[in-house]
C-alpha cells in the first residue's frame, strides 16, 4: 500500500517544488532587471541564436500548411480560403506550439546543461558562500531572457509561415493572390493574434521555468547533467501541450 502511494506523492512533491521555485525566481526577477546587460546576453543566447532554426522551420511548416490546406479546401471548391486556414492555423496553434517545442529543444537544453554544469562544478555553492544569490545572478536573467525571446520568435515564425503558405498556395498551386490576402484579412481578428501572443508568453514561462528548474536541481554528476537535459525536453513538451489545450479551451 505504501508503494502504491509513493508515485503520486512524488509527483505531487515535484509539482510543489516547481511552483515554489517559480515563486522564488519571480521574486528575483525585478532585482535581476537592474542588470539589463545580463538579461540582454540571455536574450541573445536563447533568442537570437535560435533565429535561424525558427525561420527555417516556420518556412517549411507554412509550406506544408499551404499544400495540405490546398488539398483539403479544393475538394470543397473553396481553395481561395487557403489564406484564412493557413493564417489562423499558424497564429492560433502551430506558431506558438512549434516555436515553444523548438525553443525547448534548442535553448532550453543549453540553459539546463549550463546551469547544471555550474551545479556539478560547485559554482553555485561558491556563489552562495560569497553571499551572492545564484537565483538572482544566474537563474533569473536566463528565465527573463527566455520569456522575452519566445513571443518574439513566435511572431517571426508566424510571419515566415504565412509567407511559406503563400509561396506554395499562390506560387505553386495557383490560388488567387488577391483572394488569399483579402480573405485572410477579412477573417483574422485582433483577438486571434492576441490569443497566439498570450499562448506564446505562457509557453515561454513554462519552457524557461522547466529549463532553469531542472538545471538548478541537477544531481551534481556528469550523468546527472545529461539526465536533467533530457527531463527538460520531456517536461517542457508535455507542459506546453497540456497548457495549450487548457488555453484553447479557455479562449473558445
Amino acid at each position, binding site marked *: 500500500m505504501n508503494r502504491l502511494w509513493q508515485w503520486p506523492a512524488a509527483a505531487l512533491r515535484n509539482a510543489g517544488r516547481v511552483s515554489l521555485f517559480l515563486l522564488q525566481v519571480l521574486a528575483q526577477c525585478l532585482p535581476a532587471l537592474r542588470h539589463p546587460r545580463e538579461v*540582454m546576453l540571455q*536574450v*541573445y543566447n536563447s533568442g*537570437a541564436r535560435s533565429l535561424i532554426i525558427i525561420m527555417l522551420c516556420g518556412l517549411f511548416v507554412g509550406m506544408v500548411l499551404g499544400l495540405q490546406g490546398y488539398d483539403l479546401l479544393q475538394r470543397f471548391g*473553396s481553395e481561395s480560403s487557403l489564406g484564412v486556414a493557413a493564417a489562423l492555423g499558424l497564429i492560433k496553434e502551430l506558431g506558438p506550439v512549434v516555436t515553444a517545442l523548438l525553443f525547448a529543444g534548442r535553448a532550453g537544453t543549453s540553459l539546463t546543461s549550463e546551469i547544471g554544469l555550474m551545479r556539478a562544478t560547485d559554482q553555485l555553492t561558491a556563489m552562495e558562500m560569497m553571499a551572492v544569490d545564484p537565483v538572482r545572478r544566474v537563474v533569473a536573467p536566463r528565465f527573463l531572457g527566455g520569456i522575452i525571446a519566445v513571443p*518574439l*520568435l513566435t511572431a517571426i515564425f508566424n510571419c515566415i509561415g504565412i509567407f511559406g503558405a503563400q509561396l506554395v498556395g499562390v506560387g505553386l498551386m495557383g490560388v488567387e493572390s488577391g483572394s488569399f*490576402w*483579402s480573405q485572410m484579412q477579412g477573417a483574422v481578428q485582433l483577438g486571434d493574434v492576441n490569443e497566439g501572443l498570450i499562448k506564446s508568453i505562457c509557453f515561454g514561462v513554462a519552457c524557461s521555468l522547466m529549463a532553469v528548474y531542472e538545471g538548478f536541481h541537477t544531481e551534481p554528476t556528469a550523468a546527472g547533467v545529461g539526465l536533467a537535459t533530457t527531463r527538460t525536453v520531456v517536461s517542457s513538451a508535455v507542459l506546453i501541450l497540456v497548457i495549450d489545450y487548457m488555453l484553447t479551451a479557455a479562449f473558445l
Partner: protein
Amino acid sequence: MTDGNRTIELGTGLFVLLGFAALAFLTTQLPSSGIQFSQSGDVYRVAAHFDNVGDLKVGAPVSMAGVRIGRVESVRIDPREYKAVVELAIEQQYGRIPDDSDAAIQTAGLLGAKYVGVTAGGSETFLVSGSQIQFTQSALVLENLVNKLFASIAGKDDTAK
C-alpha cells in the same frame, strides 16, 4: 568595447527588432485591410453600382471569361442612391473592354469567395479610367433564394387547395 560584445549587442538588437516588426505586422496588417501585395502599377479604375454586393471583399479578383484582369479596390455605399459602389482596378494591358460590358458578382464554387465577373459587350468605345459600368448584376444571396423558393411552394399549395 570588445568585438565579441559588439556582435552580441548587434545580434540581440537585430533579433528584437525583427521580433517586434513581425509582431507589428501580425497585429496591424493582418486583421485590417492595410497591405496590398499585388502590384498596383499600371491600372485604371472604373466604378460599378450594385444593389447588393453580398460579402465581396476588397482585394477580390475581377475576372473576364475566367481570366483575372484586376482587383476590387474599394467597396462603399453611395449616400444618395443607397447602392453599393464598387471600384475596380483593371490592369492597363486589358484596356480594350467595351463600355457596355456587364459586371456581375459571382461566387467561386458553391461556398467560395465572391468575385466580380465582367462580360464583354459589343460597343466600339472602351472603358477608360473613371468611367462607370452601366449594366450590373447583384450577388445572389442564398437565403433570399431559399425564401423565394419556399414562398413559391407555399403559393402553389394555396392555389391547389
